[in-house]
């Protein structure tokens, strides 16, 4: 599963992209976020306020609790501000 980070999430995590595997622990976006928070202070901070973090799965805006499988592309980013 490819994970992408954008804007301030990318800057705070010092990383634009990584690969992780789905597991018993990570089956949907909710459990992915729970797992993310356990990865250290930077992750804890980035995922502390989920009002300012948006999730896309396979390049579509994802509702909470979207199920995940290996091969999916998951992106975390702030509310969009283009235009």
């Amino acid at each position: 599963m490819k994970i992408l980070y954008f804007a301030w999430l990318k800057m705070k995590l010092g990383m634009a992209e990584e690969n992780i595997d789905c597991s018993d622990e990570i089956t949907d976006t909710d459990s992915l976020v729970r797992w993310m928070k356990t990865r250290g202070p930077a992750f804890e901070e980035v995922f502390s306020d989920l009002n300012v973090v948006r999730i896309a799965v396979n390049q579509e805006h994802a509702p909470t609790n979207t199920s995940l499988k290996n091969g999916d592309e998951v992106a975390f980013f702030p509310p969009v501000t283009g235009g």
Partner: protein
Amino acid sequence: MIWVQRDIFNVGDEMDKLTAGRTDIGAVVSFTGLVRDVNDGAAVTSLTLEHYPGMTERQLEKIEREAQARWDLQASLIIHRVGEMALGEPIVLVITASVHRQHAFEAASFLMDWLKTKAPFWKLEAGSDGKSDWVGARKSDIDAAKKWN
């Protein structure tokens, strides 16, 4: 038609290309967004647009298709720039063409409202104090998008 590009664009050229040789279009509406020197009261010296390649194009195409389904459009265009841009430069262009002016006006307004809340772009503003800040989402944009639900 949608374009995501670093290069600056010229509104007149884009409009000419969209309507060239056509005599069935009665109304053309364009919206151009420009880099302003002030945002939320703070001085801005330049703007950088980050985006999500792939998802950006996908979402813009969806937004354009939605406009074409809701209004009678004979042509439409969305151009959004990415990368660094100077004050006064254009960021985004939307053009809609229709027989009826009301369709062209509403579709252009809709395209901008949806683009502002659905297309994965993020603005990083460089200020006169040397610091850069990510622009926050505006409640007014979220409210504007809701009226099309």
